[in-house]
């Protein structure tokens, strides 16, 4: 039996495993975490089994601090409320978000820019007749606006990491102030409800963070990837002046939890 705390080697884990593990390491013990469907569910489950046993998970459909013994496939799943403190509804959990109770949230997106503005609404020209319609905001925009910290999990592709996203669905650090639309700091728009914003973007190639000016920089690259590969798969020039080296790979214990405790059925980890 290998030491559970020992780091695995690149051939021993899949990219998706590292995404889940890196995301789970963003959780601080005691955090109130808003999680969406898919990888975020793996991340919060793993965090609760490792460094953050007292983290509270809220699912958008209306469940608080559930302890599923069977992995939910969506946030509305009946599984979410097993041993939950409350099964409620959207009005309860979104009000908690607006009230400032959410420390951390995991989100996704189709496109992102250097300020953490994310698009999940439409690609190309948007309008009454859109060029290519996506799912829409869901709670992404509300959560990114009102949680203290958000972490995005995304696919690293040049067409997804853009100088300017086609539609700002979800507000990053520099955003339009309506009705005029001038681009200003998030703080100026959110005023009394400002409490933070995007903290990290985790992709299949690396982990990005945001500097004092709300601009994205590369923090670590995953084992097997490189600064060069990441720049080649990014539509804007990445700040690489703060790269700390490789993202620590999963430990044997983390992989064991992911495959044998959290997702033994192979729903997301096929």
């Amino acid at each position: 039996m290998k030491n559970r705390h020992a780091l695995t080697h690149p051939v021993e884990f899949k990219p998706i495993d590292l995404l889940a593990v890196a995301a789970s390491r963003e959780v601080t013990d005691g955090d109130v975490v808003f999680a969406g469907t898919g990888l975020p569910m793996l991340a919060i489950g793993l965090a609760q089994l490792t460094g953050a046993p007292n983290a509270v998970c809220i699912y958008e459909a209306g469940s608080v601090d559930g302890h599923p013994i069977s992995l939910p496939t969506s946030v509305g799943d009946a599984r979410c409320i097993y041993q939950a403190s409350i099964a409620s509804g959207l009005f309860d959990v979104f009000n908690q978000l607006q009230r400032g109770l959410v420390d951390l949230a995991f989100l996704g997106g189709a496109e992102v820019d250097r300020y953490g503005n994310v698009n999940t609404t439409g690609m190309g020209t948007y309008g009454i007749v859109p060029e290519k319609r996506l799912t829409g905001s869901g709670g992404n925009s509300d959560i990114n606006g009102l949680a203290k910290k958000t972490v995005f999990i995304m696919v690293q592709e040049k067409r997804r990491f853009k100088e300017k996203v086609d539609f700002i669905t979800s507000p990053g650090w520099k955003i339009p102030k309506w009705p005029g639309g001038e681009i200003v700091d998030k703080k100026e728009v959110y005023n009394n409800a400002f409490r933070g914003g995007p903290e990290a973007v985790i992709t299949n190639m690396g982990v990005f963070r945001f500097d004092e000016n709300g601009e994205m920089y590369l923090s670590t690259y995953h084992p097997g990837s490189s600064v060069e590969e990441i720049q080649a798969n990014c539509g804007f020039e990445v700040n690489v002046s703060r790269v700390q080296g490789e993202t620590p790979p999963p430990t044997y214990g983390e992989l064991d939890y992911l495959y044998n405790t959290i997702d033994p059925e192979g729903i997301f980890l096929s």
Partner: protein
Amino acid sequence: MAPPKQMNLKDAIAQIQDGDMLTFSGFTIWRRPMAAVYELIRQGRKDLHLVEVNGGTHSDLLIGAGCVKIWESCWIGHELFGKIGANLARKAEAGEVVIEDYSHLQILYRMAAGSMGVPYLPTYASLGTDILNPKYDHLGQMGLRDGSHPKIPMKKYEVVKDPFYGGELIHVPAVNPDWCIAHVQMIGEGGTVRVDGQVYSDEEAIKASDNVIVVAEQVVTEEYIRREPTRNLVAGHQITSIVELPWGAHPTGCFGCYETDGSFINKFFTRTRTQEGLDAWVQEWIHDIPDFNAYLEKVGIETLETIRANPAFGYSTKIKRGTRA
């Protein structure tokens, strides 16, 4: 108010007129009134205006079948079983359906305001996004906010100064749909509604609507449902019509009763990426079938027994979900 009438699905749905504004119970692929949606399509309803807290399989189907003119919401898809609402995307990209985007919290507050009887609610939700870009106020761009449409507010939203503590936020307008169609686990003969599991945004959707059709897994006596009033969500005087129809949310899930039929939804998603595919699906699963009992026979007892919920958990312990178990 007159007490709600119990009726069959066909007669209940026949009350809804072309052009009416509709909303629904549930969340994405959970507790959606699917049988009612099939019936709306069977009856050929047109020009519906959907305002829903979020979309899912039910609305993507209704839109694909050509029943809808305007969709106001924040999200549509089939979760793990279909990554986008491909029917809405196709119809919108063809200019046949107009989308009005709100964020989840914003549209929830629109429904909540409607349920409270106030004209708007303040919120900080999704400030600084293109959802608030005047260019994407589609109903406004189309001249529909001129006050002549009683269900369409004269503004999409309004930026306001907080008059009490300073700062700035927005008001979002109330919405009062003509109809809410809700699928729930249990209703009393007098209309007392009980929802088990997450209530999603059912309370706001039901209470905001002018008329409510409740499709229930079971209709029970009022005496029974009133033994535990703390478990009940809405009183009978806010309900218009009652339909008893077990499995009526299939293929979406219903807490405590049955699981989401993910395989069915995934096949729907895969087959209906094109209009031809959608038309063939509607022909096979709606027009070629006389009623919901025949639909359930086509789904098959084996599937229904597999997705039936285990009472210890509220979900099925028999369904195969992943690739390894």
